[in-house]
């Protein structure tokens, strides 16, 4: 058994029952047309949603834009909230959909521009083949206009490294990790937000963790030996190696 201490779920999304009840009441009132309640709801959620968006894109302006889009969708669709899920889950689902849609669109756009660049280069009879030099130029061109990953808010090197690595995993995997670790959602909520079967959430989370670990290592981080991570000597015989 690994001896690295476990932190309890952060509970950022885990509200007290009183908070949840109050928010549900606000949602009911908002549905009934109480604008004050809707305003209150938006104010309560803006930080949480911005945090989700920021962790997804690591770019302040883009995150603000996405948060605004999400809040607008909340306003537009508050009357469709049926109360079957927690309000916070419903709101985060909207937000995550906004983020994922944007990131998918960006990916398509980037892909299209890369293809166009490759075609143009090919027509020009470039001496560069499909090898390293071409790849280098493509990589430079493709990333030149992309916003840098904003890791300035992270407190230490480990967090900055993780933020960079998060940017390298797929948006869906990033989303799952953010929901689980940064927002503290349980498996059921994650299934609901991501629109995936509940039974697949754990394996998806594990694959996302593995992808993140791979990204961290590709950034130069060394995997510490299990002993260095605190395995006790008496656990050694469990390895079977």
């Amino acid at each position, binding site marked *: 058994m690994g001896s690295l201490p476990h932190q309890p779920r952060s509970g950022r999304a885990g509200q007290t029952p009183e908070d949840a009840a109050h928010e549900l009441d606000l949602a009911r009132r908002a549905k009934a047309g109480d604008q004050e309640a809707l305003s209150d709801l938006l104010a309560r959620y*803006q930080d949480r949603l911005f945090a989700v968006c920021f962790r997804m894109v690591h770019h302040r302006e883009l995150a603000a834009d996405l948060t*605004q889009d999400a809040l607008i969708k909340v306003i537009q669709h508050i009357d469709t909230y049926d109360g079957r899920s927690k309000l916070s889950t419903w709101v985060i689902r909207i937000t995550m959909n906004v983020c994922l849609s944007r990131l998918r669109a960006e990916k398509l756009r980037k892909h299209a521009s890369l293809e166009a660049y490759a075609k143009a280069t090919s027509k020009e009879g470039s001496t560069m083949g499909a090898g390293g030099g071409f790849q280098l130029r493509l990589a430079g061109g493709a990333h030149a206009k992309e916003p840098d990953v904003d890791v300035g808010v992270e407190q230490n090197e480990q967090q900055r490294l993780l933020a960079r690595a998060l940017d390298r995993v797929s948006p869906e995997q990033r989303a799952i990790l953010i929901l689980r670790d940064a927002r503290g959602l349980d498996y059921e909520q994650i299934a609901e937000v991501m629109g995936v079967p509940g039974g697949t959430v754990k394996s998806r989370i594990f694959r996302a963790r593995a992808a993140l670990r791979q990204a*961290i290592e590709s950034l130069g981080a060394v995997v510490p030996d299990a002993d260095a991570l605190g395995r006790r000597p008496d656990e050694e015989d469990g390895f079977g190696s």
Partner: protein
Amino acid sequence: MKSELAQFGTVDEALLAGYVEGDLTPEDELRVERQVSREGMASLLAMRADAQTLRSMGEVAAPAGLLAGVADAIERDLLLNMRDEGEDLGGVPAGRRRTRHGPALGGKFGHAMRSRQAALAAVLALLVGGGALVLPTLMRGGPGRSGPGPLVLAPRPEGERDLALLDPPVPTEIPASGFEPGPAHRDLALEPAPSMADPGAKPELTLAQAARLLGERRLVLRAKATNVEDLRSWLARIDERGGSVRLCEFVPGEVAHALLTPEPGAPDGGAPGRGPAPIAMASEGEGPDRIDLRERTSGALVTRFEPVVLMLEVNAESQTLEAALRAFKARTGFDAVLEEVAEPMPLPGARPAADELLWWTRPASEWKTRALLPVVIEPPGMK
């Protein structure tokens, strides 16, 4: 990825996930540790550390003004929808509607919003027109060189009452004013206009005209008080309760200066509106262009102070102005007057408060044009 996962052998991924999160039974943990290679175990423990790092990342606060941006975006959305509604009338299929944020506003709010679009069109026209004028005017810093006044819309909060009713007269240094909001005064409100009689040749200023001037940033309320701080705190309390009147913290220096500086040649310090003063008073004293409820004499103790200018954000409508006159009189014991200013003052646009952000979702009947009304407070001795 497959090679990354290969180090975990045939162990179920859900079990591995549980191991990383530490929520397995001791038996399951032991099972994992027996079946996973040493490298795999190192990775699992590193993943556990990654998860903790991710949890330890602090919250990121939303930038200021995010909700205001939401309101702006929704206004733009509504504008686009309105434009497309117009296109629909012209035979363009509804499917061509453009919205900035996905589908057209739907559901209850969307329906309600669409039903208000005609009213909103007028509202936004004012908003856009006013907004376009406010900033350049402020940047130039010059009075009287802009067009119509800045009109910022805000809802009339529910339960809003006559200003005079919001805060009934309280004992101050001044004797009771004698104003009691009641049926008699409601009757008075139904009269065509308060008496603005003046022996001068100019036509009387009606409340309706005053409301129009307010929208044009050409209206000033002049009041007398024995204690300006008392008056200020009273206005602030009204603000806290929400209502048709809100005390603004900022008074443009240029406006205050112009309103407090007697014009040359005025025998009583308040000259008739002549000459090229930055903000020329069309009338002063008992001039013909003021709404003047006859001043009462008062035996009150007066706290001497220099005249000051306060700024109120009010609904630009005659009822609010009338209520304001009554309330000032009730509060101070002195008649307040509304004065016309010859040229528009360089007043900024009022910003809706947080609770007014969603004014556009309220019934159109509750939408009110808001405008800034400078209030000159003078000690009773001044003319």
